[in-house]
């Protein structure tokens, strides 16, 4: 019965995609929908139930569900407040919120699917949510980017279907638990699943859909395009990494790590806040995929840490971006100047969230720390991992640069005097909630790993007392003077550095495509 319903709705969904293709006169979407329909029909006809269950709630699924429901729930609640500021008819706002909640349901099902055909259905449903939510504002650019997102994600869906069909064609199971138990048989089909993950994770050369998705209202960017939906990519790689051969695992890691570095570099050239966040998201997604692909017990744990803390930190940052956009009317980082004096709690929240992505004693930092330690062990047995180290350490430093160059603009008071504004508590409540949740998780992490405890206690204490001092101490008893600035009278304007990525973009793209092709070739 369930199977029939899912098959039926999948047909309806593909027909809807076909209709979208006709509506927007996009021949590529029509063709893709048609191919998917044919392949899906083939898969349905050849599919037979084996003994395995269609849904399995294992450790990984529970872990993903915690992220989806806690982080996603907080964002969806934030969406209610955000929509009050949005310029749209009431019924559309309501539909928007309903979409968000339905999306959470879809995600929950996606992570527990054990049958690849079912997983394909939920995968396509996330594509649909992405499409509808990006299209929400219905202007030209939204429509264009929504179509692009639909197109690229449908290619991902197609890869998934190819994998299913190949497995069926060669009489292999399409149940995930059976695939990962059968270590002798490494199917070429698996590489298509990985490619589908790559597209969902917006890896080069398919990153344009996620960057375009930033035109959607901010809760969408927070929920779908950084915290939950794109996490399907590392999730899939994690699921299948036990069956990867050494070559495939290494190549995926290399590609992921290369893109981690490249995307961080590319983000340096941007100045829209949401775009910078998007770049750091795809950069870190590539890192997660890279770590997940190693496929050992240690890398599994590190990948989980990365997924978990990235989801929280990015959710907070995106929610702050939404507040900036709606309350302070700031989109570009250049307009952020003077925010510290205008809205101190919000500016500090952004600053601390930057710290949570890059600095000790926060979760993402620990994940990176464990990864360096693990890499140092790996390289002893395999010198090829030197490339991984190379990209990793440079990429991490560039991410620090990327975040803290924004800090400079937050703090400076040079030209733009912002009007003081107080963010209503109901708007930041979700961010604070997630922040507390993160702190509790870090405390839990520290109690399980004794070797980081002293370090995190020292720096945690320093951090807390720093934040407290910033609010408490005003030094009223000391004499205040204006800046010395060596007697310069002119009011200088400090720019920020940008990296001219376009010059090299072409070569990096070629390298990425080359690595995809090598990966494909090796898997055959």
């Amino acid at each position, binding site marked *: 019965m369930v199977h029939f319903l899912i098959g039926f709705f999948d047909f309806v969904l593909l027909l809807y995609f076909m209709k979208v293709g006709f509506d927007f006169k996009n021949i590529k979407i029509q063709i893709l929908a048609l191919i998917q329909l044919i392949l899906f029909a083939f898969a349905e006809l050849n599919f037979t139930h084996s003994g395995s269950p269609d849904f399995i709630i294992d450790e990984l699924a529970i872990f993903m569900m915690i992220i989806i429901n806690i982080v996603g729930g907080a964002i969806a609640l934030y969406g209610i407040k955000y929509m009050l500021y949005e310029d749209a008819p009431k019924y559309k706002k309501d539909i928007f919120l309903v979409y968000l909640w339905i999306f959470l349901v879809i995600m929950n099902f996606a992570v527990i699917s054990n049958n690849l055909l079912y997983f394909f259905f939920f995968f396509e449903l996330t594509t649909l949510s992405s499409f509808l939510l990006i299209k929400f504002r219905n202007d030209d650019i939204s429509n264009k980017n929504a179509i692009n997102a639909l197109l690229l994600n449908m290619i991902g869906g197609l890869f998934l279907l190819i994998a299913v069909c190949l497995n069926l064609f060669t009489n292999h199971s399409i149940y995930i638990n059976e695939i990962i138990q059968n270590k002798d048989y490494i199917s070429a089909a698996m590489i298509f699943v990985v490619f589908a993950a790559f597209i969902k994770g917006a890896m080069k050369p398919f990153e344009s859909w996620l960057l375009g998705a930033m035109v959607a209202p901010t809760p969408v960017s927070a929920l779908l395009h950084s915290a939950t939906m794109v996490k399907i990519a590392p999730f899939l790689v994690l699921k299948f990494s036990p069956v990867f051969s050494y070559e495939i695992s290494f190549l995926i890691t290399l590609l992921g790590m290369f893109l981690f570095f490249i995307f961080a570099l590319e983000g340096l050239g941007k100045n829209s806040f949401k775009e910078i966040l998007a770049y750091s998201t795809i950069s870190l997604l590539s890192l997660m995929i890279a770590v997940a692909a190693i496929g050992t017990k240690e890398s599994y744990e590190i990948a989980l840490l990365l997924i978990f803390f990235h989801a929280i930190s990015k959710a907070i940052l995106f929610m702050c971006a939404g507040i900036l956009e709606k309350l302070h009317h700031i989109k570009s980082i250049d307009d952020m100047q003077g925010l*510290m004096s205008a809205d101190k709690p919000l500016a500090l929240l952004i*600053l601390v969230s930057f*710290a949570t992505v890059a*600095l*000790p004693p926060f979760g993402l*930092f620990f994940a990176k*720390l464990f990864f*360096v*330690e693990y*890499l*140092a062990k790996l*390289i*002893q047995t395999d*010198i090829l991992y*030197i490339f991984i*180290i*190379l990209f990793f*350490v*440079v990429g*991490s*430093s*560039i991410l*620090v*640069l990327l975040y*803290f*160059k924004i*800090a*400079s603009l937050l*703090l*400076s*008071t*040079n030209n733009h005097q912002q009007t003081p504004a107080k963010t209503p508590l109901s708007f930041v409540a979700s961010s604070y909630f997630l922040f507390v949740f993160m702190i509790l998780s870090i405390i839990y992490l520290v109690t399980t790993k004794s*070797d*980081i405890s002293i*370090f995190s206690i*020292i*720096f945690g204490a*320093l951090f807390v*007392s*720093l934040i407290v*001092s*910033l609010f408490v*101490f*005003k*030094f009223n008893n*000391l*004499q*205040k*003077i*204006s*800046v*010395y*600035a*060596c007697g*310069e009278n*002119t009011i*200088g304007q*400090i720019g*920020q*550095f940008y990296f001219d990525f376009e010059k090299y973009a072409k070569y990096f793209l070629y390298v990425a495509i080359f690595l995809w092709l090598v990966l494909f070739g090796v898997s055959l």
Partner: protein
Amino acid sequence: MSIVFSFMLGFFAPIYGGIFYGIDRVLKAKMQRRKGPPVLQPFYDMLKLFSKTKFIVNAPHTIWMIFYFLSLWAVVFMIFFGGNLLYIIFGHLLATVFFIISGYSVNSIFSQLGSNRKLLSVVAYEPILIVNAICIYLVFGTFEISEILAAPNNFNSLVFTFLSLLFVVPTVLKLSPFDASKAHQEIVGGIEVEFGGVFYELVYAAKFLEMIFVYSFIFILASNDYIFGTFLVVFSFFAVALVDNSTARIKIDSLLKALYMYGFGLGIVSIFWILLCCI
């Protein structure tokens, strides 16, 4: 080392670090055939700075800087207690970020320029430090300083690590030719320019701590041979002072290029050297 001794070393680091700084200044003066200040000059400066009126520009500016000093001090404590190299590197990164933010939080063109440049130089030396920490791990099998100091001397494998670290030392200490982030004649000390009185003394003392931080990396390369370790430190102390005296400042983008090309390059060479030639 007993706990009490480690604690004393850490606790008085901002004080006795001043002697190193004094020696450094005398050494540089002698190289330029000047007489130079007395060795205890940093302490005279300290007394003078303490007696000055306390001026500040704004509270956050001062608070960020105080926490820079405190975090750096914590890092030095971790070094003397034989902590984990990676934690020390990242703790130092956190401290530096506090200092950079302090520089940004004041409306002074030189301070902000200094912060910008400091941020870039961090991006330049941070990867080198991590790669070298990995080299040290490959040789000794541990990141813990206490265990490294107990291991037998294996400096042959770490030659390139040593050379690579020689690029990091002047960058962290803001010495020529890698002193674009401080650049006295150009941006009047960068971040340091807006501090006065006792608060400038903290910035000053932080310099001693930075010295202890970078030279301890060089010291541990000699593992249990402390005499050789001291020799390495003295040698690099001389070399760095000599280079500081005899070279001109390079621009910040050349600094990035130079560090990535030579410092980072040597780090990579070091990994190959250790893995292919030594074990």
